């Protein structure tokens, strides 16, 4: 298993072949190389430009960005937008909700995945095969969103923070990842520990949990991104604005940013420093600034943890 995305892709054969065949490289080959580089560069640009353009717009003069004038470089840089958005009521609270569900939800999911992944390798557990299938099969069917909504409501899980963290605790895909990992560790470890008199739980906490750290890091990253990005559960189950997540509030803002900008501007009207058009909040500036706040954690975490994502999908592919 390779450790990073970079190591995944083409290895030596391609290089070797080309070195030996250097004198044979045809015009068609050269053309293909140029074409490949151009197309991939273009697609990469299409992937990254939206993020870049929004970032430069949030730090440019708001009157210019509202007209779509900021395209390649920021103009008249200022950071007032990032101070002003926190004057929108509910944004701070939504950030807390999102952070809370991400931390609590991820912790629960990682803990449960580790424990269940380990337990499903215990061959002497009563009904092991049945319960494993009972878990995995849930990946392949669902009742549908409305039946799900109606039953969640009957369980009083509407307008309830628990609705964010309880349903994701048992996650079949993550359990498969951990189980595969545990199976790849030497059996002697567990055997030696049980001969020394360690019970199941001691075995799990003392021996397996430390060994499983790498795969649990992968699970944690996946689970955290899922929690942070989750939108549908708020949409269906939550009407209490105190429980709105950042994603949900961003969705609302996209549709109502104009009234919010008016409000922030009214608040600012009191302080004399705020007069310039460049820092006056517009529909565009509010929407873009909130977008960056919501996407920032992903952008910050992603480059560091990319290799975990890759690892996760590879192990999953082997087994799943």
């Amino acid at each position, binding site marked *: 298993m390779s450790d990073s995305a970079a190591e995944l*892709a083409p290895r030596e054969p391609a290089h070797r072949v080309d070195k030996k065949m250097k004198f044979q490289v045809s015009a068609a080959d050269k053309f293909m190389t140029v074409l490949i580089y151009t197309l991939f560069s273009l*697609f990469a640009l299409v*992937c990254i430009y939206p993020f870049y*353009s929004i970032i430069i717009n949030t730090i440019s003069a708001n009157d210019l960005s509202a007209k779509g004038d900021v395209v390649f470089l920021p103009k008249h840089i200022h950071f007032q937008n990032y101070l002003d958005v926190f004057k929108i009521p509910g944004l701070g609270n939504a950030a807390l909700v999102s952070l809370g569900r991400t931390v609590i939800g991820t912790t629960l999911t990682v803990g449960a995945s580790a424990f269940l992944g380990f*337990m499903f390798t215990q061959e002497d557990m009563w009904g092991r095969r049945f319960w494993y299938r009972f878990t995995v099969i849930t990946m*392949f*069917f669902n009742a549908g969103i409305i039946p799900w909504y109606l039953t969640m409501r009957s369980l009083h899980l509407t307008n309830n923070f628990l609705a964010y963290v309880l349903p994701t605790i048992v996650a079949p895909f993550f359990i498969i990842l951990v189980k595969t990992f545990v199976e790849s560790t030497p059996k002697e470890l567990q055997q030696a520990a049980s001969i020394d008199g360690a019970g199941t739980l001691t075995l799990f906490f003392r021996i397996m949990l430390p060994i499983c750290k790498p795969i649990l890091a992968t699970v944690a990253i996946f689970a955290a991104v899922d929690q942070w990005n989750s*939108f549908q559960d708020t949409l269906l189950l939550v009407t209490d604005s105190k429980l709105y997540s950042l994603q949900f509030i961003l969705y609302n803002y996209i549709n109502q940013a104009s009234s919010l900008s008016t409000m922030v501007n009214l608040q600012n009207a009191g302080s004399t420093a705020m007069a310039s058009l460049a820092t006056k909040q517009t529909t565009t500036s509010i929407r873009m600034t909130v*977008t960056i706040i*919501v996407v920032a954690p992903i952008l910050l975490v992603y480059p560091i943890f990319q290799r975990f994502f890759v690892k996760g999908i590879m192990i999953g592919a082997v087994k799943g």
Partner: protein
Amino acid sequence: MQTRLYSKKSISIRKFLYILPFMILLGVFAYYPLYGWVYAFFDYMPPIPLSESPFVGFKWFHSLVENQVKVDQLLQVIKNTFGMSGLALLFSWLPMIFAIFLTEIKAVRFRKFIQTVTTLPNFISWVLVYSLAFSMFSSEGIVNGMLKQLGLTDSPILFLQSSDHVWLTMWMWMTWKSLGWSAILYIAAIMGIDDSLYEAAHVDGATRMQVIRHVVLPSMLPTYFVLLMLQIASFLNNGLEQYFVFQNAFNKENIQVLDLYVYNLAMGGGSYSVSVAISMLKSLISVVLLFSVNGLSKLLRGESIV
């Protein structure tokens, strides 16, 4: 001997008891929602509870095909579902091609950069995708700003409110978001190709395209086949979020896939029972599809996919 047997049994049971709480959670959140299907057989009108709602049997299932207006509406929704899933199916080979040509890039840093950047969109939510789309393509967005500056347009083009090419634009957003990520599995498959195959091809004097066609492509087909089967199995499950966030009054007719239609019927129109009836049919057909492709896979490759 007797006591040891007994203790073995008790250990076995105790281990089960450890996982029992989790199995209960799974029962509640994955299996119990199936019970929600009973709403399809009642005339459920909130706030009147289900226990006091009249039982109507298959009334809602009949109603789906009774009224011409409703039939037309449902047909349009099915058409959208088939159109968008069909487009995705038609281009399901794209990640494979992406992986093949990405691995043709020999500059390691450049390749790493491309892979990192193209995988990123997979990790942002649909709400964020919509927000990016809005910033780029709304009437005051960056694209319209550029077009205006270049003097190409007088009045802004309303990309997002357009009812034309909705299937295509939805497919494009989907591809933008997931192409780089989907390619990773194929990159892994390419990595697994035996060096000796490349060497043999080289000895035989194969050109670059010939190596791709006769060495790389065949070794990826098993992966492609499995993913294609899974994609067919989820043909009806487009998901709700993407279509929900991009939906507006102008494109509604062409964007409503089954998942969104079911949502709109219930949460917008209050027709919970009809909505559940459609949900139920959809889930049942999906399970049948899954079994079918699984059977097909057993027939063609001798192994099941689930």
